[in-house]
């Protein structure tokens, strides 16, 4: 990379950083204020070498959310069996209905086999699959008129992540990292927690940076063993040996930097070793959820076989957010252990919901009780919903991108609020359809970003997360 102009190096990255730090300090949520000063120095050097322009001049709007956690139910969580109550569908159970489906085997209408009840405070209807989530549905905001473009898993997951149903575009987390940077230069801005049992369709492509600088790609953390690839120094290297080598290296690199003034990336490289060393210390501590109290761990379901795995990821997600990670994406399920329930809706969704319900509700409660829900955005997504008709003659449902439900919670949102509505069968939006573009525009807006102004020039086009579409659904905002 060509070193940026001396002028820009001296002023603009620092002032942009400053702006973020100052804004951040105002909220006073991070207990790690001691990091701030170091951050200003280390961060500046790192970012100075990084062609990050992002929003250019700080946020476009006053940010309502400072950080985001997204829980991705992979395979297609059925809206009509979880968060979109359709009594008419039950009434017409078993009657014919004419629609085109992905597998081309539209059966009869299939009323939800699950019982729906209201949350006492907000009155939101939630099915018996998600009793814990129902208990905190007063914190939820629902969009019941989501529309996606593809009925095919990989493109649909890609669209939810990148805005495009095609391969090869940056994911939302990468855009956020690019636009806002991280609050903690010791950690990546965008962390991904895949399901240890499975990967989503497309795996690494789903959190890639594509044409954005690679530093913005999602960094997968594991919840067992080494949290990060190459984090641990192998045992064959003795600690004294490593520290002596690092000392030797620092000397060599300092000399080299002195002999080659004006290249900011050389300073950044020196800093990057310091950061790496700090990550070696801090990441294991962050990843160690045993440090949490037993009651907290129980809240997330870490104590039970079914909920332990997602519980650990949700808890780790909270710990990462606390330390300044901008966006944590948590996957639940994948291609095999999946929400994709073509023929056995009851058993498949029951199994998945059992894993999902308690950790997610626990996360919401925990964030709320820590005051973090004020400026943390929690997003519950899936790539598409499921058909109101059964697939063929089975007791399952096919893919349904024409209408489905996503839930949101936290920063700047109306709580216990429903936006948009599906028709009486959950087949098509009855009002206010929300496209994935709209959805992304809304999320960016909550972070203070105008989706039309977060752009990156690539192969002839100023690319956006929202392509040439999108409207922030401000009706959701408190």
């Amino acid at each position, binding site marked *: 990379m060509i070193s940026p102009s001396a002028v820009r190096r001296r002023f603009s990255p620092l002032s942009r950083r400053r702006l973020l730090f100052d804004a951040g300090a105002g909220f006073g949520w991070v207990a790690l204020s001691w990091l701030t000063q170091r951050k200003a120095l280390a961060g500046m050097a790192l970012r100075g070498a990084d062609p990050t322009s992002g929003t250019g001049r700080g946020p476009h709007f006053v940010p309502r959310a400072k950080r985001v956690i997204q829980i991705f139910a992979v395979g297609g969580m059925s809206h009509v069996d979880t968060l979109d109550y359709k009594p008419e569908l039950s009434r017409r159970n078993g009657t014919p209905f004419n629609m085109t489906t992905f597998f081309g085997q539209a059966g009869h209408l299939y009323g939800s086999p699950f019982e729906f009840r209201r949350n006492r405070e907000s009155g939101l209807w939630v099915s018996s699959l998600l009793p814990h989530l129902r208990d905190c549905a007063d914190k939820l905001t629902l969009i019941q008129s989501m529309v996606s473009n593809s009925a095919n898993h990989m493109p649909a997951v890609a669209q939810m992540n990148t805005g495009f149903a095609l391969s090869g575009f940056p994911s939302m987390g990468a855009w956020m990292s690019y636009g806002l940077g991280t609050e903690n230069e010791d950690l990546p801005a965008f962390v991904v927690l895949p399901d240890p049992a499975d990967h989503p369709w497309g795996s690494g*492509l789903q959190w890639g940076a594509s044409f954005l600088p690679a*530093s913005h790609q999602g960094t997968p953390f594991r919840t067992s063993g080494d949290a990060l690839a*190459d984090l641990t120094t192998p045992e064959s290297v003795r600690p004294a*040996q490593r520290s002596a080598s690092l000392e030797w290296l620092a000397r060599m690199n300092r000399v080299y930097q002195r002999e080659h003034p004006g290249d900011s990336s050389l300073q950044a490289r020196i800093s990057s070793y310091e950061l790496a060393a700090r990550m070696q210390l801090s990441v294991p501590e962050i990843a160690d959820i045993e440090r949490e109290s037993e009651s907290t761990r129980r809240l997330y379901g870490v104590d039970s076989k079914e909920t332990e795995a997602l519980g650990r990821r949700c808890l780790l997600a909270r710990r990462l957010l606390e330390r300044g990670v901008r966006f944590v994406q948590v996957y639940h399920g994948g291609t095999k252990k999946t929400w994709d329930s073509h023929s056995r809706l009851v058993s498949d969704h029951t199994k998945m919901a059992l894993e999902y319900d308690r950790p997610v509700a626990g996360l919401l409660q925990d964030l709320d009780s820590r005051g973090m829900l004020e400026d943390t955005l929690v997003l519950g997504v899936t790539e598409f919903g499921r058909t109101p008709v059964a697939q063929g003659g089975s007791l399952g449902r096919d893919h349904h991108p024409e209408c489905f439900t996503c839930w949101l919670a936290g920063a700047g949102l109306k709580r216990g609020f429903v936006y948009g509505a599906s028709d009486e069968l959950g087949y098509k939006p009855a009002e206010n359809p929300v496209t994935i573009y709209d959805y992304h525009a809304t999320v960016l807006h909550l972070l203070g970003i105008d989706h039309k102004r977060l752009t990156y020039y690539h192969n002839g086009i100023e690319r956006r997360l929202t392509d040439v579409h999108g409207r922030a659904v401000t009706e959701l905002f408190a």
Partner: protein
Amino acid sequence: MRRNRAIAVFLSIAGLALASQTRSEVGSPDQGSGAMRLITAECLGCHNSELATSGLDLTQLESTLRGGDHGPALVPGHPESSLLWSKVSSGEMPPGSPLPAADREVFREWIAAGAPWDHPIGSESPIKRSDSNWWSFQPLRKPQPPSPETTPEHWRTSPIDRFVYARMKAAGLDPSPPSDRRTLIRRTSYDLTGLPPSFEEVSAFLDDSSPEAYEKLIDRLLASPRYGERWGRHWLDVVRFAESEGFERDTLRENAWPYRDYVIESFNLDKPYLDFAREQIAGDVLAPVTRDGLIATGFLVSGPSDTVGFMSSVPVQREMVRQDQMEEMIGTVSQTFLGLTVNCARCHDHKYDPIPQREYYRMKAAFDGVWQGERDLLTPGEERARRERVQPLDARIAEIEDHLAAIEVPARRRLLSRKAAPATSTVAPSPFAQWTFDLDSRDSAGSLHTEMSEKVVRAEGRLRAVDGTKLTESVVRTVPLTRELREKTLEAWIWMNQSPEKQVTVMKIHNTEAFLGTVVDGIMHSGGDAREWRNFSSSSFRTAEGNGTPEATGEDRLIQVAICYAADHSIRLYRNGKPYGKPYTPELTIKEGLLQTYLAEEGRVAFNVSEDLELEEARLYDVALTGEQVEASYLTGFLNVRREELDEAMTPAESSSALELRAELERLRVRREAIPDPQKIYAADVRQPGSTYLLERGDPNAKQEKVSAGGLSCVPAASPEFGLDADAPEADRRIRLAEWMANPRNPIFARTMVNRVWHYLFGRGLIENPNDLGFNGGQPTHPELLDWLAGEFVRDGWSVKRLHKRIMMSQTYRQSSDWRERSVAIDSGNRLLWRYSPRRLEGEAIRDAMLVVSGQINWEMGGASFRPFQEEEKFNAFEMYTPVDSGEPAFNRRTVYRMNVASAANPLLDSFDCPNPNVKTPKRVVTTTALQALSLMNNAFVLRQARAFADRIESEVESDRKHHVRRAFEIALGRTPGREEMAWSEDLVGKHGLSSLCWGLFNTSEFLYLN
């Protein structure tokens, strides 16, 4: 004064050399007033909101009034007080190409009139798009290099230097002195071969005092086979070369690597770029067709493939997937060779360049016959020769097999009835088809013969999977049914070697092969804990689970399984002649759930064997057998036909002709097998397309008029009219397009490649984005130089190597990279080339350099890629790749031979910005992150190379610490250590061993950066 000068210089960088007299008149009337247009065209290259060179942003009135580091730029109403006017009027601005008097006057009048900001500029620029007057669409000019007299003596020789010097001088910059030789050999070695020079090469170069030493160095590097590997990798970036499908399944493309070898070899042979380009567009049809030409079309199809989308049951979705694929292909063709984003005109006219939507579809018509796929690597001549050898043999084999069958089938029937000592009074009816797999894999009852695959063999009278074959590969199927089947029975004799973990459908009958909506029934073992025999069926419509008893886990047993599908839709399973589970009728009201019809010409039977399950024999009946009949069949047993028995069942005459026929067959088969199968390549799979239509908004449901193949009208000289009909032969379309595009009269074709080469040598092109010479790509920094180079390139017969040499022999390229504060203040981005821009090595170069330094490098060129990952096949043929680290020599090949898989992560290379192969990457982004540091610190590969490096030194040099340190520096950095460095290093080696130092050297900035 200093302040004025700085502004002048900043502005100069945006310099634009439009030939028109009054530049304010360029463009259409809706592009705002003259001054607005001038600012946009002349100033915004530097003074935009992004760059704001010298703090000055001229995109808005407010920012212009506020001015930059040197104060306000504009005082409305007062030209004489406005910095902008004083610079423009003095001719200092735009530097190097002062405005004509008429345009200056436009400026003055505008300021005097109060500087009305009557049109938004910048992001909402008055010039919103290019038209046919855009610089890159103009024919190549033949610019005269500036006169040598105005150039310092040592910068006179190369015209490149004279062009560069003139621009520099106008901006108040001086060139840097030449680099020292050590720096120079390292720079040229990495630039041309992607590898560090050995210390011996460095020493030899330092010692060569002849004036031709540098030129000899360049020649030597250009002649090295390593050159093609380096520049091949660059090209593979541009053309998004992938060896997997991407998308959902991301299946490997096993035979994509020949394209990589073709690219490397083309660079090494200095294949004229014109031919290189034409081959990649139409090498399979351009006469004379060569193997290279066939392989080259891999370019067209290296993009991602949504195989699952193609199998959607919804036709419009399949059509959409195809349209998306075509957009990707057209985008790659046009960006790679024309520097234009034609793909942007799929849904509407191009927003920035003069490319009508119609022309997107004309280009699409040229490629509509191209599909992703595999083909035989045979030129038409070779194919003909092969056919002439193979066809008569195959015909003769089939003929003899038929003769033999005519004798053997009746004999088998007789044998069967004789062997079947009836244990019951019932006799099973004759099967519709029967495969004993004893002597061959033919249907001994009818004509439903099996098409064998190389992954499945016959052995011990069984059908058996070749060791190590994946379950999805060990499938053989029969030719299609000759008549339709409705009621039926599948019967299989299965050897269970061990209980399978995954579900296996040993025998099935199915209609057309497709991922979704396939109609199928089959004998399946559930695998897993259930260990149950089931009917495998479309969407499990006709499958009952938990119906039968789990199969025991014991080994080596022969089991008969039969499934009867009756006209009343009921399904019955049998095991070893006894009912297995309960008969059932699927409780479904839809037709897909009921008894299926397998169609003539469409339905086939397929067998899938594995290490766990092998097939002894299989039968298909055209009736649903009764329980008694199944039992009779079981008791009769499978028909293990030994040849002697068969012969005994024949008349002597039959037996002797069978003997003859078999002998003849054996001879023919030996001859047939001696003809090797042609190599498969992943390349354009071409079919004559249907008509191409313009699609309104790109919507496949909104077909407009028919479109025939053609080029772009904005490209001058070569006519975009191909004179082809809408239904012209496929080959003609691509040939015409290749000839139109790769053409000496097409200026943008030559400019694009020249700029690419410049980009890789200097870290930055004369045009910033190598894939966009359209409006969004902006103006070149050195338009005359670009045209001069492009002209030389064409005149030189499109030799890329000579282009390299021409550039690398220049003083511009040989400058030192030293940083000078004064020059930085003028041109911090070094766009005017006052020094060599230092840069970090690419991930591949870093990895290769470690291998070279450690001595572990394996120089094997070409062939199948090495695979640093473990491949795991998941549900539905979806692949997962886990990184694998290995010190085996096969893994120590250069990184360009790594298999490029879309979803296979590699922590080391990914962190060093190696691109995803699905993404076109005309220039790499360079980041510096803590994850890189972690990789270099702890990655097993790095640590292994460090140890190997230490071993290498110890084996090369006497065991003296000083010598060890010295040698380590020489090998890794191409120099001897300084006094201080020696002291630090001796200390480190003394306390922690030599590999600590070796590890450290890999981590130094000096090792990772190029100066």
